[in-house]
């Protein structure tokens, strides 16, 4: 085979895989947009479901999803950002093995305790990093089961035992709060990795400039590092949240309800959710054909919300990029 022929074959193979991916995307989104867009009327997005989910709108599911996403962000973003700042700014850059080697080599010298603390800190960082990496690989249904076992059956029941009259259940059941906590766990790895990535983009020069002016490390982080990486952190946070927004498995056992006559008014209430609503419409309907338009409409709204979040992330990213390269 000539080199020219090999080149042509390579281009054909690579090019066709791109076309294939695009085609799948176009069919998928096109299908949903075609059937879904015309379902989205004012009534559809402002009315609750009627007639045993056979008619009406999806308003409670939209509200539930929004409330869930907001609560989840409140839990996941600060914790994730704080973890990433610690990992990137405070743990020893030389890594565990080198930190340990230096501690061992320091026998009989002053400052040995500091080197030991460095090694411990490096160990902690290594453990945390691998925990984060493993967390990211856990199937989302496992998060759901964990949420049920840990948040509801353990934490919730114990709060009830301590604060409620015997037999009363307030915290020890599925609710907006526990679903948000479970979802936050799922989102955490994304937030942590994205934040660390963003912190890495702040030039070391700037940290040195700040320290050389007599700033403490925390002042340097607060006044130079965080402002410089804020857009990256936001982008990463939004992308993580938008992924969490569409997840159904973690909320199956932790608070999602398939139909509620009321909107959630408290974090202990159950809630409806767009993703879960899709699952219910497609599996629990007595007449699948009749609910199809509703299903398309719900999927369309869910996709639109996720796209909007992603779009916000991309816009923030491009805006800061152009600001940096001015």
């Amino acid at each position, binding site marked *: 085979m000539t080199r020219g022929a090999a080149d042509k074959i390579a281009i054909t193979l690579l090019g066709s895989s791109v076309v294939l991916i695009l085609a799948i995307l176009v069919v998928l989104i096109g299908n949903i947009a075609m059937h879904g867009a015309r379902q989205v009327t004012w009534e559809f997005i402002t009315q609750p479901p009627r007639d045993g989910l056979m008619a009406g709108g999806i308003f409670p599911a939209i509200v539930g999803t929004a409330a869930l996403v907001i609560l989840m962000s409140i839990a996941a973003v600060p914790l994730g950002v704080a973890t990433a700042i610690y990992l990137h700014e405070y743990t020893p850059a030389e890594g565990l093995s080198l930190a340990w080697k230096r501690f061992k080599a320091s026998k009989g010298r002053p400052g040995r305790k500091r080197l030991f603390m460095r090694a411990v800190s490096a160990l902690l960082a290594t453990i945390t990093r691998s925990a984060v990496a493993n967390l990211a690989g856990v199937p989302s249904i496992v998060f759901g089961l964990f949420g049920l076992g840990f948040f509801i059956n353990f934490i919730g029941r114990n709060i009830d035992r301590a604060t409620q009259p015997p037999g009363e259940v307030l915290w020890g059941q599925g609710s907006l709060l526990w679903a948000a906590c479970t979802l936050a766990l799922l989102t955490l790895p994304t937030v942590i990795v994205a934040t660390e990535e963003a912190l890495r983009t702040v030039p070391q020069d700037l940290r040195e*400039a700040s320290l*050389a*002016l*007599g700033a403490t490390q925390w002042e340097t982080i607060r006044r130079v590092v965080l*402002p410089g990486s804020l857009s990256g952190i936001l982008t990463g946070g939004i992308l993580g949240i938008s992924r969490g927004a569409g997840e159904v498995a973690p909320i199956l056992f932790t608070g999602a309800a398939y139909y509620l006559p009321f909107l959630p008014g408290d974090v202990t209430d159950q809630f409806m959710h767009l993703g879960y609503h899709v699952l219910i419409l497609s599996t629990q309907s007595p007449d699948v054909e009749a609910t199809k338009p509703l299903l398309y409409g719900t999927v369309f709204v869910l996709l639109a919300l996720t796209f909007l979040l992603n779009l916000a992330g991309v816009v923030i990213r491009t805006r800061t990029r152009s600001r940096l390269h001015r």
Partner: protein
Amino acid sequence: MTTMEVVTQQPSVSVASTPEAGPKTKIEVRDFNFFYGENKVLHSIDLVLPEHQVTALIGPSGCGKSTFLRSINRMNDIIPGARGEGLIAIDGQNLYTPGIDVVALRRRVGMVFQKSNPFPKSIYENVAYGLRIGGVNDRRTLDETVERSLQRAAIWDEVKDRLNGSALSLSGGQQQRLCIARALAVDPDVLLMDEPASALDPIATQKIEELVYELKNNYTIVIVTHNMQQAARVSDRTAFFMLGKLVEYDVTRTIFMTPKEKLTEDYITGRFG
């Protein structure tokens, strides 16, 4: 490592200490050693830097002059495994005794880096940074200090009409003078400069050199440079480093006209390095 051990490792080159009794001592360095991990990069440095003079540190790449400079404000602390031993004293206070307040030290010892590194903030906020972290928020104090610092760094006239513009919109030479103004704003008495003009064109370089000459009336300046002519032009004293050792330290004129050491002569006449 004990002092005795270090003394026995004294390099064979002779170390000229302060040539003539004159101005007050600002920085005193005695038997200072520096390590990166197990790597010894500075060997028993002895130096006495007089107040309100410019001392140039010269030597081939990797000779330890930048490491030495960064030891004077303990910027090397942020490098993992870096460790200094011995004495560097400013106004008689050893920076390497345990418990020294590094943050307070760095407010007294300003630093200008090789690559200008203004913050991605406005010109005004760059200069005000050191004051703000020091808790100064009074607008008048800030305004006055910003103006005074920019004037001292000889950049006021170029930026006074756009103090709220981005520091990143300035030219390289202006950015470097802005960084000098930023360092001056916290009112240090020592100024460390790590090849401050190496990335600049000749005109911007000349401005920096004139500035150094001006500043020495109020500050004790230590400047690392690769440029022999620059060392000869701006400095009162010159220290020649090689392979982590101080080879020769004397009045700049003596170093360049009649060096005592063969190594120094070879280096300044361009036979190596």
